Every structure is written in structure tokens, then in C-alpha cells.
């Protein structure tokens, strides 16, 4: 089954011979230039309701005479690049794909292809009641209750991400919209043994005021916080408080202390100009997200924060996208309708342009010595709460083949310009205890948890920072019918990224 003769190198060589660019491997080419001290940032971008596979993955690779022979082989013979299940994957250079990568990942992404990694075939094999659970993208769990810690918050509390106390450990923002499940959080932190959601900001203006506060009142704020600190401590020591209430007040105290740090930002560089918006106004959606992008970029340039969570929408988003022609139902409804590929492409393409906006603003030189840009030194992860599949067969809320598109290379830690497919050919995922499979779904891939572990490791986070209860691994390992997935030590990252 495996084809060792068709090595990755050979494929690339063939591709290059057909005027296709070599993938960019900064970990090899730039290793000597990179400074260990350069801060890495992690930016997670969330969009909702899954992706239609024909919109998301490259399907229009061109006609036979337009494409390289090896690309044709890759399409025609799915086994040719498959090495076996344990390390098996196939890959191609993103720069080798003629035309836009896909309907959603359009031509605007072309300048960044060398800094992108598109992954197919990562299955969140989660035990779940319903998969519109935003935290799944970063926690690897599919349940709304109990909440589980997400990787961004592990990073935000890592001594390796922040060697000194930052101005803000993570900046979480969301664009408000219509959703019956908007109360479900995206990001979850552990504080004082309480696992609680990180409530995102819903208004860019509030974030701006937080980052660049009016000088007036700063001293007063500090003295107020100092004074309240004492009062809060007294209340916490009241022995009639329940355990949970006391822990919540402990968190309150911590929040206050963090705010005390924040009242005087270390740096006021890069104060961005924001567009005038009303965060509750649906027609301002484009400007709201652009404002968030500007704020995130400003926070990076000022090194105010290194972990970001940009929620383009709430989970199970029901935005109606009245400004997009041909979109006649809301986003969530469309994913439950057959023949909705076109309107779904329009919606996700609209989101994708916001992602491009972020890439564009981050791709400015940060380190003149290495030539690295802010984007190079960041890990940007665009994901989803649901998987990629052919939605013409409906959206069954499965979490197989999760949407994974990475940008930047985390200061040389990620190999980019690649489209990797971890799916095992001709092997369907067993979905039920009785061995039933999802005939219309994707093929068996690798555990999504491995990606989450990879991302944490690439940010320098060590195992002991997420394995707080001593149990190896991250994410859900409870669903594995017929032992299809090899969870191994549960501590291993995704191979070859």
C-alpha cells in the first residue's frame, strides 16, 4: 500500500520541474538567523458551522494539460503518496496549485501561500451531545459542559510564552451576531482550580479604550484597585462563603490585580485609527472585524499581548448576511440545506477576506536582521467548531476532518507552503459502536488532538503546563470505535508539521 519510491522530495522535484515553487521550510533555511528571544504569538481565528468540502479544499487544480504530472498523479492515485497509517500523509506545495487554492481560500491568499499550511484529515473524535461547541477548536472536547481548558489559555499562562508578567495574557474578541448558542464560550481558562470561560470583548471600541486608556483617571484607578483589594480579601476570608463563591472571589481579586497592571500599558506604540462603528449594527460587520484586526496588530507590535482569539462569529452563527447577494437564509440554516454550496462559499469567502486583512497587516518586517515579519514570528490558526464535508448530504454536526489552516511559522517552528492530507485512502471512519460508518463523510484521518499538542509545543509550552492532572495527552480520547485511531502515548504532536 505504501509507496516509498514516491518520496516527498521526488514529488517536490517534479513539481518544481513543472515551474512550481518549492515549499518554504524556514526551520531549515532560517534557523541560524532566528533569535530565541523573539516573541512568538498565537492567534486563533474562529468561524462557525463547518465548511463545504468543495468550497474549502482545492478541487479545481486545473485541467490535465495545465497541471504538473505529479499533481495529476496525486489526484488520480490517492495511494501514491501514502506511506502507511502511523506516519502516513500525502502533501503538495500550495504554490503548485494553479489558480486560487479554493473558492474560500481565494486569490487574495496567493501572496501568502509560502507562509501557509493547509491540513486535511484531522478528526476530533469527541464524545458529544451536539457539536456546535466553539471550545472544541482549541480544547479537543465536544461537550458544552463541563468546560475544558483550551490551548490558547494554556499558552496564555505558560512561563515559556510570557517570561515576565504581560500587560494582558490573552485578548479575546468576538463579533456579536445572531445565534441561539452565543452563550457558549470559545476559550476556557483554569484559575484557582475553577474552570471558567474567558468572556470575549464584543466591541472594538472597548478594546481600544482598554489598550489606550484616557490618561485622566489612571492614578485614581490604581488607588481604587489597591483599596478594593483589601476589602475583597476580607470578604474572601469570610468563612461562611461556599467553596465555589470563594474561588470566584479569588478570581475577581486576580482580575483586579491584572487590571492594575493594565491601567498603565508599558508601551503606547502603534495606536491604530479605528473606523466608526456600532458593535450591535449588523451592517457594520466588515468594519467591526477590521477594527479588531487593527487592534490585534497594534497589540502585537507593542508586545502588549501574545495570545489572541478572534471569533469572527459565535458558534452556530445565524447571521443573515443581507449584504451578500444570493444568500437567502442564515448561515446555520444554510449548512443544513442541500444545494447551498454557493451561498456558503460567499459567506466563508467574506470571512476569508478579513483573514487576509490580518495577514496583510502582520506581514511587515519585524526583525531587520533575519527579515522576518510579524507574521513569520506568529502562529495563526483559522479553525471551526465543525468539520469539512460535503454538505449536500446535510450537516450532521460531525467533527471529522476539522478545518485547519495555519499561517506564519511561529519563528521557524512550522513548515509552511504545504497542503497535507492525513486521510487514509479507502478507509471510512467508524462512527458507531456497531461499526457503522459515515459513507458520505471523509476518510479516516489522524487525531485532531495531535495538532493541539503540536501548536502548544511550537509555542514553547511544556507538557507539564497542560497535563496538570498528571494524565498524558490533551483533548478527548473517549471515542475510538474498533481502535481505529492510534493514540500512542497521547503526548505526541502531529508528525511532519
Amino acid at each position, binding site marked *: 500500500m505504501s509507496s516509498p519510491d514516491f518520496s516527498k522530495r521526488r514529488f517536490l522535484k517534479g513539481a518544481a520541474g513543472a515551474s512550481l515553487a518549492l515549499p518554504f521550510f524556514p526551520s531549515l533555511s532560517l534557523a541560524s538567523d532566528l533569535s530565541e528571544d523573539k516573541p512568538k504569538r498565537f492567534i486563533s481565528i474562529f468561524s462557525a458551522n463547518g465548511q463545504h468540502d468543495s468550497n474549502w479544499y482545492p478541487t479545481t487544480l486545473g485541467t490535465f494539460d495545465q497541471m504538473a504530472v505529479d499533481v495529476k498523479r496525486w489526484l488520480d492515485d490517492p495511494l501514491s503518496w501514502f506511506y502507511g497509517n502511523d506516519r502516513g500523509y500525502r502533501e503538495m506545495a500550495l504554490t503548485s496549485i494553479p489558480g486560487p487554492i479554493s473558492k474560500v481560500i481565494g486569490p487574495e491568499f496567493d501572496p501568502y501561500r509560502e507562509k501557509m499550511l493547509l491540513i486535511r484529515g484531522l478528526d476530533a473524535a469527541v464524545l458529544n451531545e*451536539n457539536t456546535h461547541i466553539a471550545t472544541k477548536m482549541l480544547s479537543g472536547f465536544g461537550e458544552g459542559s463541563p468546560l475544558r481548558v483550551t490551548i490558547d489559555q494554556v499558552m496564555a499562562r505558560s512561563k515559556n510564552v510570557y517570561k515576565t508578567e504581560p500587560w494582558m495574557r490573552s485578548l479575546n474578541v468576538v463579533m456579536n451576531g445572531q445565534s441561539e448558542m452565543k452563550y457558549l464560550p470559545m476559550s476556557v481558562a483554569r484559575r484557582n482550580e475553577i474552570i*471558567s470561560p474567558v468572556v470575549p470583548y464584543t466591541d472594538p471600541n472597548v478594546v481600544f479604550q482598554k489598550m489606550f486608556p484616557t490618561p485622566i483617571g489612571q492614578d485614581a*484607578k490604581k488607588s481604587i484597585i489597591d483599596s478594593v483589594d483589601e*476589602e475583597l480579601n476580607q470578604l474572601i476570608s469570610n468563612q461562611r462563603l*461556599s467553596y*465555589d463563591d470563594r474561588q470566584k472571589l479569588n478570581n*475577581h481579586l486576580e482580575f483586579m490585580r491584572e487590571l492594575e497592571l493594565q491601567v498603565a500599558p508599558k508601551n503606547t506604540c502603534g495606536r491604530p485609527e479605528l473606523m466608526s462603528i456600532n458593535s450591535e449594527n449588523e451592517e457594520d460587520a466588515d468594519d467591526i472585524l477590521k477594527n479588531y484586526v487593527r487592534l490585534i496588530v497594534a497589540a502585537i507590535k507593542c508586545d502588549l499581548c501574545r495570545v489572541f482569539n478572534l471569533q469572527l462569529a459565535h458558534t452556530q452563527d445565524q447571521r443573515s448576511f443581507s449584504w451578500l447577494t444570493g444568500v437567502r437564509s442564515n448561515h446555520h440554516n444554510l449548512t443544513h440545506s442541500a444545494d447551498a454550496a454557493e451561498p456558503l462559499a460567499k459567506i466563508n469567502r467574506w470571512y476569508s477576506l478579513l483573514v487576509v486583512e490580518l495577514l496583510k497587516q502582520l506581514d511587515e518586517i519585524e526583525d531587520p536582521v533575519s527579515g522576518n515579519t510579524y507574521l513569520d514570528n506568529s502562529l495563526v490558526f483559522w479553525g471551526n467548531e465543525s468539520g469539512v464535508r460535503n454538505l449536500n448530504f*446535510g450537516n450532521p454536526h460531525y467533527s471529522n476532518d476539522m478545518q485547519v489552516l495555519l499561517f506564519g511559522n511561529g519563528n521557524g517552528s512550522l513548515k509552511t507552503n504545504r497542503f497535507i492530507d492525513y486521510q487514509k485512502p479507502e478507509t471510512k471512519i467508524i462512527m458507531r459502536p456497531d461499526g457503522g460508518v459515515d459513507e458520505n463523510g471523509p476518510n479516516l484521518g489522524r487525531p485532531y488532538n495531535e495538532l493541539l499538542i503540536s501548536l502548544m509545543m511550537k509555542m514553547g509550552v511544556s507538557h507539564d503546563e497542560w497535563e496538570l492532572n498528571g494524565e498524558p495527552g490533551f483533548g478527548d480520547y473517549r471515542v475510538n470505535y474498533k481502535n481505529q485511531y492510534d493514540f500512542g502515548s497521547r503526548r505526541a504532536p502531529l508528525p511532519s508539521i
Partner: protein
Amino acid sequence: MKAAHCFACHGDSGISKNSSFPTLAGRDFSYLEAQLLAFKSGERKSEIMSAMASSLSDKDVVDVAAYFSSVSINEVSPKTANLEKQQLPMGEVDPTALCQAGTMKFGQKSHAIKRLAKDEYKRTLWDLLGADVANSLPALAGVISSIPNDDMTGGFANVDWSLSENHVAGYLGVANEIGVQLADDFKLRKQVLSCSKRQNSETDATCIEQFIGDFATRAYRRQLKENEKSSLFEFWQQADEKDSNRAFSSLVSRILMSPHFLFRRETGLNIEYDNCAKAVIDENFNSVTRLSYGLWGTMPDQELFAAAMDQDFLFSENLDNQISRMLDDPKTKEWINRFFRQWLHFEELPVEGYSWGFIEEIDRAHLHKSAADELDNFIHQIVWNQTKGFYDLMTSRIVQTDAPAIRKIYGLPENAISYSELVPENRAGILTRAIKLMNGVDLASPVKRGKFIRQQILCEPLGLPDTRLLPEGALIPPKPDYRLSTRQSWEAKTKPALCQSCHHLMNPLGFVLETYDGLGRYRLNEQISVPETNPEAIREHKIDTVAILNINSASESPVNNAVELSEALGSSTKANQCFVKQLATYVNSRPLITEELEIVRNLATEMMENDGSIYSVLRDYMRHVALSGVTYQNSIVGLQSQ
């Protein structure tokens, strides 16, 4: 594991969360095996269980029975585990230190404090500062909007007790904004400072002391201890030394950031009082605070604070007088109206996506809002009439609306002819009101309607399906098929036994409402077409609303239409108790404890048997709320379990 198929109805590990399905965990092996075999052979009849058991081999039957019989009932679910944790004694309180006065004992509750819900916080600020001052701060509402919205996981926004950095940042933003504006505006300061008529009042220590005694008492909703007063005074002195012009404003901000303002006490946290009188007064303040947040969603007014100063308040006529006064206050009507909007799920209106052909001549402008206003009016007339009960809420035909679109939907004449109008006889109560029937799109969804009734009117949570156990494509709504009515399409779609395990609880309730289309218009027939694929194929189907509701454990007769459905629910003990339970949860701003559930059952029974009114249920329940700090002894009960 075959047993996993049973979890969908009988709960994880066979520990049922729904009274309609028995707990299997811990049952005798022989019993379980015998029942499964009886279902399998047809000896025992059940549409769902027969189908489920028929797919089991004899070995499976043994395995499943062995599994459930081996599960110890003590292997509790996480929620139950949480309950046990909460039942542990809290802290190291010496019971003898608790104040005892006659039969009064100050109980402990698991929710001793709670963050003010966002709406409660805003209302409290307005009352504390005075509406004139609050309204004159142009940016205040915007800063308040930066505080996270409360979520509805507990059923109501005010039940949310989560706390994040953004909450604290929002509170600080508000306190700062008010401080900055006060510092800049002398007139505003005069309005806030009670002794402002004095010369140089802001720098006069006596005046500041007086201000602390007044403003902080109202903000903390209790009398301050001497050390608390002196601490605030010292804060002002230090601020005064730095910048005398801003000291007073800083003091106001400081009080607004106090945990005693941001969190409200449920009941006595102060156990260090050396005499019972002080403790009684302290509990009175807690009591009036519970009353005011329960009925008004805000802090007590001056009259309540004054009442709290009376040691005998809780056992005097004045308690009933105060509750009656509060019930007559417009603030109560507004706050209780929010209860109904959240309970009946019409606080957030559906997105409008009707096609032009469907909506025809109905005016689209403010359509959903007008429909919501109409239901508000209906509820208002039922509740504040003071004689009408839950049965009337479910069945009354009174209507009051000027909105042409809603009048057209109900088939009322263009203009109202009197205040005592009735909707046609084909409607009864809240379930048949336009906003509860409007789906946002042309097709009505009987499943959504049924689920709403099951969960909100009967308090039977259904959970969400485990998608991995469902047949392929199970979550795609049935495509319109001109050969089938909507009901028939859904019946075919949800026929598999696994689907029926939940759908038999939803579908019948929704099918009865099929005489109303996606806009709430009454109809006897429906036209089904598939315009995109077969524009010629249109067929008219007669609506079939006859269904057995499955709302009682005993065998039921079918109901014929929505009016009979409403009457059945209005007369249902389960629905009456559910209503009172939800109302009680809302006015407590938290889930109920065991003693409160007992009160709920008694009040519901009283309402049903003696023609009691919603108004009297609310009044009587608020009396319990007022007294709850002294009548419940050491009640630390699992709130999540209810």
C-alpha cells in the same frame, strides 16, 4: 457497547434525568433481562422498546442487562457529584456562634453571594445615582455595554453567576467613567452629594462622613460596620491629599468598585455581631434586598430600607404591606414582564426570512416586534388582573393590539371595537399567539414547537441528540414533498426507534399546532409544493391535529386541536408546577433549593384547586423569599440538581 444505545433516553450509565424514562442502573439482572426479552418477543408492548430490543441478540440482552445491573447507583453523574460536594459543610463555622432569637436561626445557603446580573447592575446604578445624574452621563450606557451579557444557561439571564476579567474591566470602566464625569461637572457632584448645600461640602469631612453613611449604605444594601466607614473615609482623605478636586469623585468610584456593591448577599454573611438585634437588622436588609431584586431587579428603595430598620419587620404586617406596595409598582410589571419574555423565549425575536409570496399582504414593518408586544399585553392583562391563573394564561382569548399585521393574522377587524376583544375561538392562550408561532421562515416547525412546550411548559429537558448514534442524514429536516403533509414528512423522518425515543415527546405537541402556519395564521389545509424542482406539483393537504400528547404517565385520550391542547396543559399539574417553579427561579435569581421546590408544589396546587391567581402566587412566594433567611436552617442543597 450495546448499552450505549439506551443512554439517549435512560441517561448516561442508565441513570435517568427524565422522569418519563426509568433509571436502569443498579436494577436486578434477572429483572432487566426478563423485560428486554419480553419486549423482544412482543410479550410486553412498547413501540420504542420493542424496536430497540428487537435489534438485540440474546447475547446482547445478557450483556446489556449485566451492564446496567453492574452499575452502582452511587456512580453518580458529574452533576450529582457536584451536589454532594455542595452538601459538605462550608468553612469552619461554629454553629453556636450563629445568632439565635427564639425560633430564628440564620441558615447557610450555598449561594451566599452572587454577582449582580448585568441588567440588575444597570438598574441599581440608575437608582443609586438617580436617573437624572445617570441619564446625563452620555458615555455611561456605552461603557455598561462592555460588560458581558449574561447567558441563559440557567433559563434566565439573572441566574448567570459567571465572572470573567471582562466583567471586572467593565465595572472598572463604569466606575472610572462616573468618576471622571463627576470630577468635571460641579452640578453633577451637587446632585450626588447629599449635603451639598453646605459650603465647601466636598472638602468638609463631616459632609463626607454623612455621604458615606448614606450613599455606601444604599450601595452595599446594608448598614456599614464602623471599620468599613472609616476605611472609606481614609480613602477619601488620602485622595484629598493628592488632589482635593477629585477626591469626592474618586470616593464614588471606589464605592462602585466595592465587592459589597457588585455582589449581593443572599443571607447573613455577618456572623460576628455581638448581639442579636444587630443580626436581625442585618438580616432585614438582606430580606428587603431579596425582595427588591426579585420584583424590581434593582436595589431597595428608601421605604424598604426604612422598613428593614424595624426589628420586627419580618413578623409584622408591614412585610405584607411592603410586598403589596412593590407589586403595585410599575417596576414590578416591567421586571416580571422580562420573566415572561425569557420563559417563553420571545426576548430575542426570530430573524425575518419570509418569502414575499408567503407573507402576502401582511405588513412586514416591525412584524415580530408587534407580535411580541401583543403577547406582552396579553400577559399583562392576565397577571395584573389579579384574579387569573395559569389556566387562563394557557386558554384565555382576550387580546389587545392595534398592529394591523397582527390583527390580520388573528382575523380581527381592521380596527379594535372595544378593549375587551377576543381572538377567534380557534385560539387559546399563549401557545396560539402570533409571536409563539412565528418561525421566521415560511415553513412552520412542529418539532421546534413541540420541543418548546416539552421543555418550557412542562419542565422536561430533552437534551440534544448524540449525533454519532443517529442514522445518516438524521439532522436534515425533511425536504418538502408535495405528496406528504408537513406532519407526514416529519412522521416519516422521525420514525426510527432511536429518533422516536425523544421525538415521541415533541412531535405530538407540535402536530396539534399545525393549524397555524409559520406566521401564526390559522389554516385548515396546507399547500405543499416543490417550486424549485417541480413547479407544477402542488397539493393541498388537510391538517391533521389529532394527537396523544404523552404528558401524563397514565394513558391519555387524544386531543383534537390547539384549544384542547392548551386546556390540557392549563389543567396539568406538571405544567402548573413548572410555571411556578420557573417564576420562583427568576425571582430568586438562582436555581431553587429543596425547601423552595416544596413551596412551589404547594403554591401550584393551591392555584389549581382554589382558582388561585398568578398574582397571588407571586405575592405568597415573595413572602417566602422575604423570610427565607430565617426559616431555612442550614440548607445547603444541590442547586444544579433541580
